[in-house]
């Protein structure tokens, strides 16, 4: 069955409304984009949407109880709930440095979970 979806392109702040016609993973037509990036975006949103996942990890003995983290690259949108479950179980120790790899290759995506700030040890 041929389906039609209207997406808001987020590849740049203009936010064009892009209409895409597709059947399964086959793209039939893309309209409404003002540049090629828009059609690439729409294609990916239908075939395999991905997102960077930012969240937090529990830290022991840190100046704060949590450290913010992100996936080092975008991962499939559909596995984000599973990734959240795994990351929620992690616990690390201070000090933490921005860029530290907290978990390698989460769910075989090739993306690492990395810290996004420095966090010193809690001063007594």
């Amino acid at each position: 069955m041929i389906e039609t979806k209207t997406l808001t392109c987020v590849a740049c702040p203009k936010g064009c409304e892009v209409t895409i016609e597709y059947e399964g993973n086959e793209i039939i037509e893309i309209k409404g984009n003002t540049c090629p990036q828009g059609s690439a975006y729409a294609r990916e949103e239908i075939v395999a949407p991905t997102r960077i996942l930012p969240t937090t990890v529990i830290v022991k003995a840190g100046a704060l109880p949590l450290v913010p983290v992100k996936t080092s690259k975008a991962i499939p949108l559909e596995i984000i709930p599973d990734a959240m479950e795994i990351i929620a179980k992690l616990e690390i120790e201070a000090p933490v440095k921005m860029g530290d790899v907290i978990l390698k290759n989460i769910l075989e995506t090739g993306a690492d979970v990395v810290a996004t700030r420095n966090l010193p040890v809690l001063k007594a």
Partner: protein
Amino acid sequence: MHKLEKKLVIIGGGPAGLAAAKTAFDKGITDILILERDFELGGILPQCIHNGFGLHHFKEELTGPEYAQRFINDVAERAIEIKLNTMVLDVKENKKVYAVNKTEGFFEIQAAAVILAMGCRERTAGAIGIPGTRPAGVITAGTAQRYTNIEGYLPGKEVVILGSGDIGLIMARRLKLEGANVKAVCELLPYTGGLTRNVVQCLEDYDIPLLLNHTVTGIKGNGRLKAVEISEVDKNLKPIPDTAKIIKADTLLLSVGLIPENELSKKANVVLDQRTGGPIVNEGRETNIPGIFACGNVLHVHDLVDWVTEEAEIAASWAVKYIKKDFLKETAAIKVKAGQNVSYVIPQKIELQADDRKKIPLYMRVSQPLTAVNINLFADGEKLYSFSEPFAKPGEMISIPLAQKTLAQHENLQEISVEIVEKEGE
């Protein structure tokens, strides 16, 4: 009382204060002091853990903490003096700054120039007058962001969000991913106040309903919030009585706007603009008080931190010129006017002499969403030039350049004005 002297005092260690310090240092003023009331630098960014920062400034996508960390590192490398856990209580027209902290008590700093970078605060339930009691569980979206991302506990399990500003949208996704049931985001206006990418990636990705033209008309619960009543609104934004619906919720997040934090500015007799809530400034971001500058959210609420950085660089460059006495004003300022469909333009006036600049960026917001627009620039009523954009949205600040050449070509210019209009026939 303990007394200090500093060339440049920066109030607030958020992205605006940090970028201002870095720029001033690199331009030759190294006797700088940053005063920050929090226990660490970074302002609001450490709690904005999501990505989407830095696309303009660093040409890569960073999270809030990463964006802050880069500037914190830059400031640390430059041996710029910082006092944390230090609250500024007063600023005077003569650039005396009064602050307090635990180790030094109450002290005075005489500055040659001051940069105001205190950021903004959130509108609260009190400020918007929702009927009903005030049980626990009614909090601002920013407070919820702090609880969830910094302090490590969830504000609630069943959530309704009022207001579709960026912080509300971001928190809808964050709480959903942390396992809460986010039942709806209600927006009074017929369009969202947030960035398009946030509507897509925070609401559409997770099927969170966005109810436009809806507002909260009642709050129920004693002690803890039990439910909220929402209603549709008519064209005049008045609730339509028979549309009221009750939604069970233990948490109501308010994302109903930010207000520049200008209590200190007022003490220094800085004149504020009714529309922005921040100081009236010239193109160097200097207020009506010579040598007192402002940048970032204290000046006007920014949607992208990248513009905060650019604005801080402008303010710091001119503060440096002011301190070095390499600073001349024209006898008469050129007024910058917000014309049709423009809610405000920063700067509000142009009055500084500068031979080395090519252009002056004009920051503005459109007053309602428009498509296929021309942004027209006029000098004393004469059309200068026009930029065309496919869209203009109130949630997204627009920056357009005013060429220095143009200013040079028009003698005795009184007024520059900008309008944003839809192209005819489209």
